[in-house]
């Protein structure tokens, strides 16, 4: 079996390398890839869309349709992880630990789940029988850092037009703040703060904003995702309207990606039971 695999691999590799005989040299500014369509993007991006970052303008405007489906792919991945792994079991007992004193309260056969823990995340935390003490240095520093990281994520989303960045990058950074909360504290406490329903709705809402803006353009009489039509409802000229349409779309992408990042983490790390986590 391994010999067959090796033979197939060498065959494919030699075929690919044989084809490079005809490639243009690396870095050649006169290669066909650089002469045909891309100069149009570079020359006309600022005058047609008011956005200097050509990668963002191609991603969100010229080829915005691809980006919508890319966001759909990551939404699919989040829903698939949720569908495959999530096991909703009625919890038979709860363990709650009072942090300042270290006292553990064991509730057997509860009539309903204990509430009010999310409001006092400094005092109480939900644990399970395999709990290990967490470090106070990690907790304090992460508690301070998370708002700043979120602010930076919002900056990356908003400044995608002018510097490297955009919806995906900013959304991933925002999602990692949720994951940082789950890692430094506890998956269960972070899920008490950010409910599963909110995360699920966030994922779908982000992509719905993207396709909703596109559908809105159709209702205003243009083609799908033709942002110039925004000038009919907002007091802007068509070129500036494109920049604002792109911003709206990037915000949708950011919301969707941050939700999906946390949904995938929560399901994979706890195998769907939402009990332990990493």
């Amino acid at each position: 079996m391994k010999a067959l695999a090796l033979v197939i691999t060498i065959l494919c590799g030699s075929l690919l390398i044989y084809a490079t005989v005809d490639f243009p040299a690396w870095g050649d500014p006169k290669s066909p890839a650089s002469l045909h369509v891309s100069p149009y993007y570079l020359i006309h991006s600022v005058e047609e869309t008011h956005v200097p970052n050509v990668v963002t303008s191609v991603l969100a405007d010229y080829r915005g349709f691809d980006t919508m489906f890319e966001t759909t792919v990551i939404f699919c991945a989040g829903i698939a992880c949720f569908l495959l792994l999530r096991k909703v079991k009625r919890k038979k007992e709860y363990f709650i630990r009072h942090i300042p004193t270290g006292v553990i309260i064991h509730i057997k056969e509860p009539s309903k789940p204990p509430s009010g823990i999310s409001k006092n995340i400094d005092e109480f935390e939900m644990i399970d029988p395999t709990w290990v003490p967490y470090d106070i240095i990690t907790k304090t520093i992460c508690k301070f850092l998370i708002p700043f990281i979120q602010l930076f994520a919002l900056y990356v989303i908003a400044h995608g037009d002018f510097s490297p960045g955009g919806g995906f990058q900013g959304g991933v950074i925002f999602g990692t703040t949720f994951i940082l909360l789950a890692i430094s504290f506890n998956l269960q406490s972070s899920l008490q703060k950010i409910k599963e329903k909110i995360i699920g709705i966030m994922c779908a809402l982000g992509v719905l904003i993207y396709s909703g803006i596109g559908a809105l353009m159709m209702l205003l009489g243009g083609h799908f995702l033709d942002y110039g039509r925004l000038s009919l409802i907002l007091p802007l000229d068509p070129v500036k309207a494109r920049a604002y349409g792109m911003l709206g779309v990037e915000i949708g992408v950011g919301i969707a990606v941050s939700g999906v990042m946390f949904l995938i983490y929560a399901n994979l790390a706890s195998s769907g039971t939402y009990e332990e986590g990493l």
Partner: protein
Amino acid sequence: METLYPALTVITPLIFAFVVGIVSWINKKICFWLALLSLIVAFISSLKILFYITTTSSIVQYKLGGWPPPIGIEYRIDWLNGLILPIISFVALLNLIASKRFMEKEFKEKESFFYILYLLFTTGLLGVVITGDLFNLYVLLEITSLTAYSMIAMGGTGRSYLASLNYLFLGVIGASFYLLGVGYVYIKTGSLNMVDVFRILPHIYNSETVLVGFIFCMVGVWIKMGLFPLHTWLPNAYTFSPISVSRIIAPLMTKVMIYVMIRVMFSVFGRWYVLGRLYGVNEFVVLLASCAIIVGGILALSQRDIRKVLCYIIVSEIGYMVGGAWLGNPNGLIGAILHILNDMLMTFCLFLAFGNVFYTRKKTKIEDLKGLFGEMPYTSAGLVLVGLSIIGIPPTCGFFSKWYLILGALQAKDHFFAVSLILSSLINVILFFRFFEVGLFSKASYKKEAPVSMIVPLFIVSLMLIVVGICSGSIVNKIINEFVLVALG
């Protein structure tokens, strides 16, 4: 008119999938009706596009984002896609109605989330067929594949997870090969739009890069369609998935890949390349297709589980279409395209009929078909019709596509392919008569037919088999011939 319907066909299931994604966290009951509504809208708008194309004899082009190609992405609907689009939405719509009870039983409280994956799978398929841009096709292919992997893994048994993971690995290899092929073509042409590449390629036909790009595109598409010997993922993936899932993936996924192959061959590279420059390769591919037909038939005869028999029938049918497309003459190509249409309907009807049997009897081996004709008369009627169609008896649709394929094979003097087609008909006769024989044994003790929501779709699709068969002449003359004239000259 063109400004609305092309976008509506793809966007409606997409937006409704996201709406269901939000609503399913709040109220689970209305998700089914939302999904049904979106598929009805998609079906009607794809029918309107087909009527427009046949009545005005022109191609529909739609610029996304308002940018002209090759700057932006465009949708390009000619006779080939216009024919396939309504069938996809039709099959998805009927399957949703017929599988509602299956989904309630198999998925319990996660049923409303399942509709998200279902609608996104349909969107991906519709998008693959309708697009005119090579990279957009890759992205939509990945949406389709990802939802397919997840839906197959919802089977819940250990074997379904393993089958899904195996399918995932091979599917990723296939899609990545396709992406590599597109990259090689891009590095020599600089464009991703199909019409643009078609215009530029004739100047660089002698390039080795274009040759290897073509090979990798083709091998990637062959892996995803399940052409022998790259079909090893197919039997397990379709057998161990839930019934409601295999009923939509099996008829549609592999046939849409055959559409992609025909599109890349004739609308991107062109017949001068595939049949002229690469002369001799097509004989090798037709040989491979003939082997696929024979091996599929033999393996189908040796199975005891009904679902595995159906999967190997699918492997055989793929051999018909690949061989027909690569024969190189108009009759073969007409046969292949007509067979895409027919096979989608036939496979769907087959899975519908056997799905009814599995729902009422809960067992899947051939000997569990005892007394079928007495206990489930309507389902048996549908089964008989689809059996006749797969064997290839007029006036069902299966006869006409086989007729064109055999004509094309004789015209190209490829006797091995013609012999394998006839042999496959004989093997199908043995297979189906084995089903009918077991079904006629033992008397009916009580009537236990499948519920009405499952019989009505079966009835509609079996009727379509006969209707499409009778109208084959007009379909070929008005729609398929136009595409073949452009493709093969």
